[in-house]
């Protein structure tokens, strides 16, 4: 089911937590919501899950609108809220049964679903314990299990891997990837590597506005459309090579990055490429080109660039 967010604005007092945000998430897509703390990620997710209703705009999931059909939308969404609130005094199994009942899963299928979730989320050893006695990682799994129990079409996960150790993070990511094949998933995070590893598409939100939307490679390109090459050229005089590289027509900037060897970093002018020129120069001068590596902009740089101003 597609999620279509249309111009939603949510105000808290005079402050706009979400300001005229629109985007679309297609079925089978995993979208990562990225942004600094307080950017409006959770507020947007709360609007999608019908916990907060936006002051303006509409959100549609399939044929349903959050204003007209909140009950239907709640039925098709699995939601893991931020900080993973749980009833601490309930045993894991009782808790999952409670959530399954609320979702109206028929009695015959209920036990089967609960056991499947216990298995999928690796809760076998803890299923009889009270939630309050579990470690943070296991609580997070219980949170995921409750979000997935009714096999939802749409999954909204607010910081799903916070508080987990690296092994658990990888497990949960794999789980999300697996689930994400048939379902529509939105997850938020402020860990860039996580979003890059899990998501097909990234939305960067800052101060309540969407500032970027695209795949991680799109975003990199968007932030810096200059070609940056790392070059190592042998059999030539360092300064001669430096001057020659600088004199090429597409060159913007050349840097010598090694102390002894002939390794350079070459930035081309925006929108141009110097690769062919470099090759020709090397051939003309009889130099040997041993390395030419395009340097990618880090997603961290993109993120900083988009959210700092």
């Amino acid at each position, binding site marked *: 089911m597609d999620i279509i967010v249309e111009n939603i604005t949510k*105000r*808290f*007092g*005079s402050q706009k937590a979400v300001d005229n945000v629109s985007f679309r998430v297609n079925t089978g897509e995993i979208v990562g919501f990225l942004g600094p703390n307080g950017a409006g990620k959770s507020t947007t997710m*709360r609007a999608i*899950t*019908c*916990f*907060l*209703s936006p*002051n303006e705009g509409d959100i549609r999931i399939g044929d349903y609108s959050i204003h007209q059909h*909140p*009950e239907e939308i*709640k*039925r098709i*969404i699995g*939601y893991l*809220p931020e*900080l993973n*609130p*749980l*009833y*601490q*005094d*309930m045993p894991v199994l*009782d808790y999952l049964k*409670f*959530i399954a*009942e*609320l*979702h*109206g899963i028929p009695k015959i299928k209920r036990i089967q679903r609960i056991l499947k979730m216990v298995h999928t989320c690796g809760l076998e050893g803890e299923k009889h314990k009270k939630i309050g006695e579990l470690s943070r990682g296991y609580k997070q799994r219980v949170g995921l299990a*409750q979000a997935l129990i009714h096999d939802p079409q749409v999954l909204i996960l607010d910081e799903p891997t916070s508080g987990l150790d690296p092994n658990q993070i990888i497990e949960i990511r794999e789980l999300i990837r697996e689930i994400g094949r048939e379902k529509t998933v939105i997850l938020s995070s402020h860990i860039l590597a996580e979003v890059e590893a899990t998501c097909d598409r990234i939305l960067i939100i800052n101060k309540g506005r969407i500032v970027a939307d695209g795949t991680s490679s799109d975003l990199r390109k968007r932030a810096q459309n200059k070609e940056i090459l790392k070059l190592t050229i042998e059999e030539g005089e360092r300064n001669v090579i430096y001057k020659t590289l600088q004199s090429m027509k597409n060159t913007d900037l050349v840097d010598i990055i090694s102390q002894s060897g002939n390794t350079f970093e070459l930035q081309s002018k925006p929108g141009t490429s110097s690769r062919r020129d470099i090759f020709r120069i090397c051939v003309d001068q009889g130099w040997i080109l041993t390395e030419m590596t395009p340097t990618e902009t880090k997603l961290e740089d993109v993120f900083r660039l988009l959210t700092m101003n």
Partner: protein
Amino acid sequence: MVTIWIITKRELKSFFDSLLAYIMIIAFLVFTGLFTWMIGQTIFLVKQASLQSFFGVSYWALFIFIPALSMKLIAEERSSGTLELILTKPVSDAQLVMGKFLAVLILVLLSLALTLPYYITVASIGPIDHGATILGYLGLVLMSAAYISIGIFASSVTNNQIISFLLALFIGIFFHLIFDILARYFPGFIGNTLNYLSLSTHYESLTRGVIDSKDLIYFASLIVLGLFGAEMMIGRRNLTD
């Protein structure tokens, strides 16, 4: 309806798991038992086969106990964040409030049911007015329902359980006592209005065996008002600016 019952079941289970339910029931039975049979204006002193003294004690016991049961209902969900969890399941604000209301009501009904031996004992001692006794129980149930709904309202205002408890008592004491006292000082229309607002007026007429639609409307409106107020307070998250 099913959703409400699921909420009620969970709430009841949590009352019993946390021992709160047992403590409340035992405290209620000890408290009412002492004052009905052993201390003060007991049945033996009054020398009438009537549960008037029990109804008098219960009137105060429930007034104090109910806020203690209801104080956590919404406040705890708010402070732990589970309010967001539950309201993003297919549950409406009203269903949540109703479910919680029912849970406390059932607990109170259970406590009252456990006092039936008092009734049976007194009935075996002498000729008891069955009508008045049944209406007295009805009065207790209605009064409890009214205080539970006030308690839920108080609980929905804050995320602090102590504040919720005190607020419930504060609102409750007006209906319980203050309106009644004030009514004596004001003549005419104001006095009548205050008298009508006082819960004790309606409760006492029921325990004397008189049933009037005026009393039923009074209790019903208090219950609806409290529950509606609680629902509004939960929905307040969407009423910014």
